[in-house]
């Protein structure tokens, strides 16, 4: 055993110092101050280690050792057809390559009045952009990665929905990684004012199988009765590292639908925090992780019921094959004032191999007395009775297993309302099975 002393991300500090003069907002004092403060925070925290309770099962040492480099210049040119193949039909498409918005690859159709979609980089170049307050709010940086992100952020999407506007076509944020060795620190903001509606797809993918590091943050603020669907699709290169944080603040009677489909990356960690801050707010957090070979996929979610009459629903499913490993940690905290909260959380896992491993930990903390809360976690294998039933009808064992695995996971796909997204996810899920199934399998 060689004892590795963590260098607390010194490489990342040096890389920042070398490149900060070419980061967006370099002439804006508020941006410069924000970056410097965030970097100091990162330095103080250092990369988490396995001694941190929240990182007990996930080692980020490879990210430290990887010494990924900030991509501060122009992104590499990318073939448009390759991008189009990833884009969902009928969406407002924003494409980012190695952490930089590429307008020529993007396609945002005429937006209804009251909707604005801007790239973060352009807002950082403004003296007053309206997003400063959001950064102030986030200044406590829950993790070293969030601090590193604020220091190094290159780009992202800023979506603003004015009161009462409803955007029918989804916003597809496509973050593509194409270059070996780079770190992409992207940050997106969504402000949904009262009674506004939108569907946002946050999609991380790669061209080829480069090794890189994605460190992404998304903040969503929902005004009264606003409704936001946020679908995260993580399809990184199987050799990539992916760290993501999503936070959502929910005002009165607002509704957040969050899904996380984690299919790619060598190591992926997603933190989702939903704060029910207004009475009657509702959130549903769904997720599906599918891992094989030696993939490691970690989800940490936290739902804070801060005020009365909030509803939260959470269902995460996992399918683990080979020597893959997954972590699910779901906290639901019902604070003392949050009477009549209603929370349900479930995590179900299917292990297809005896070498696959899951650490699941649903955590309910209840500090109010008049509440309805439940949680459940299961870990199982394919059912012999179901396999026999299918084989007795003529299916060979491999097809039977593929069909049952699909059936287990498909529930998460079925819950997606948007037809094109549902179809895409269904195809991706079928593509991950040991045997190809046709498209009509979904019930």
């Amino acid at each position, binding site marked *: 055993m060689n004892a590795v002393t963590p260098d607390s991300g010194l490489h990342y500090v040096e890389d920042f110092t070398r490149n900060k003069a070419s980061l967006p907002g370099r002439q804006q004092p508020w941006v410069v101050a924000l970056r410097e403060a965030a970097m100091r925070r990162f330095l103080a925290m250092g990369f988490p280690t396995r001694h941190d309770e929240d990182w007990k099962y996930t080692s980020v040492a490879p990210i430290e050792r990887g010494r990924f480099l900030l991509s501060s210049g122009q992104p590499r040119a990318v073939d448009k057809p390759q991008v189009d193949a990833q884009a969902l039909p009928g969406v407002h498409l924003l494409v980012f390559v190695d952490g930089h918005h590429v307008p020529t690859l993007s396609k945002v159709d005429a937006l209804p009045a009251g909707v604005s979609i801007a790239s973060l980089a352009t807002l950082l170049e403004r003296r007053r952009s309206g997003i400063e307050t959001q950064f102030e709010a986030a200044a406590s940086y829950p993790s070293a990665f969030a601090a590193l992100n604020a220091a190094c952020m290159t780009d992202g999407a800023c979506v603003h929905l004015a009161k009462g506007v409803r955007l029918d076509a989804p916003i597809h944020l496509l973050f593509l990684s194409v270059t070996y060795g780079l770190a992409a620190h992207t940050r997106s903001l969504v402000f949904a004012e009262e009674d506004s509606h939108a569907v946002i797809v946050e999609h991380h993918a790669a061209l080829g199988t480069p090794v890189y590091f994605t460190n992404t943050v998304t903040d969503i603020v929902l005004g009264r009765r606003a409704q936001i669907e946020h679908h995260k699709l993580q399809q990184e290169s199987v050799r990539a590292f992916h760290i993501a944080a999503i936070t959502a603040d929910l005002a009165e009677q607002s509704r957040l639908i969050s899904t996380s489909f984690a299919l790619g990356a060598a190591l992926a960690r997603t933190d989702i925090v939903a704060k029910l801050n207004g009475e009657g707010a509702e959130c549903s957090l769904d997720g599906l992780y599918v891992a094989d070979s030696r993939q490691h996929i970690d989800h940490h979610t936290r739902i804070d019921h801060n005020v009365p009459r909030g509803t939260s629903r959470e269902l995460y499913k996992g399918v683990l094959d080979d020597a893959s490993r997954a972590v699910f940690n779901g906290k639901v905290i019902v604070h003392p004032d949050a009477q009549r909260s209603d929370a349900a959380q479930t995590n179900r896992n299917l292990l297809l191999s005896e070498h696959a491993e899951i650490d699941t930990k649903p955590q309910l903390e209840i500090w109010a007395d008049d509440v309805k809360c439940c949680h459940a976690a299961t870990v199982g294998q394919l059912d012999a*009775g179901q396999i026999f*039933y*299918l084989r*007795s*009808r*003529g299916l060979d064992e491999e*097809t039977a297993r593929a069909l049952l695995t699909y059936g*287990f996971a498909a529930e998460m796909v*079925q819950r997606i309302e948007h037809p094109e997204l549902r179809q895409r996810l269904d195809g991706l899920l079928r593509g991950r099975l040991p045997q190809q199934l046709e498209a009509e399998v979904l*019930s």
Partner: protein
Amino acid sequence: MLKIDNLHVRVAGKEILKGLSLEVKAGEVHAIMGPNGAGKSTLGNVLAGREGYEVTQGSVVYEGRDLLELEPEERAAAGVFLAFQYPVEIPGVNNTYFLRTALNAQRRQRGEPELDSMQFLKLVREKLAVLHLKDELLHRAVNEGFSGGEKKRNEIFQLALLEPKLAILDETDSGLDIDALKMVADGVNAMRDPQRAFVVVTHYQRLLDYVVPDRVHVLAHGRIVRSGGPELARELERQGYAWLDAVGQQAGAGP
């Protein structure tokens, strides 16, 4: 078509079938009756090839082949069909897709051309009409959330679609309302054919009023202890199985 000779089967270390013999010829309908726990479902499972059923003695010959040598899917392709006493739910998998995959898997194994969606749909419509079934069940996941009766009807629908040569129906009539029972019986009768045989496990005379069997057998203590014509079922309905105790003692005391 099917010849079972002195079959001994252990399940979870316990001997359940203890020297069962039965011969079924093409075109015949055999009813198997007997008390709970006698081994009727065990027999069906062994014939369909379920794992965990250890044959310690005896043989099963189906159309001149050693049936016990075959994998479950090979038996299906060879024409063996078991309608489950408790049909299994397969969440997330569309019923139509499942049925087409099953039918095509069998056809492929038999070297027959597969049916495309259109041909399959046409076949489905024909069979639905014969069975007076609503096609609503086809659009749902396999058996998921189906009522007990709907699951049984779905088994009969599969039977009609897959057109096996040897159909074993394990209490398909249990839990059915009168109309559904009639439908199941009509379905079976419509499929009666000189080339096809049925083994019908049931607890009730009711089904046998509609599907008149050629032979009725009583399975108890792991063996066929009595066989007769249709009148045997009526006799059992009147008398129950108390008389079996004597047989059991005999069997228990035997070598």
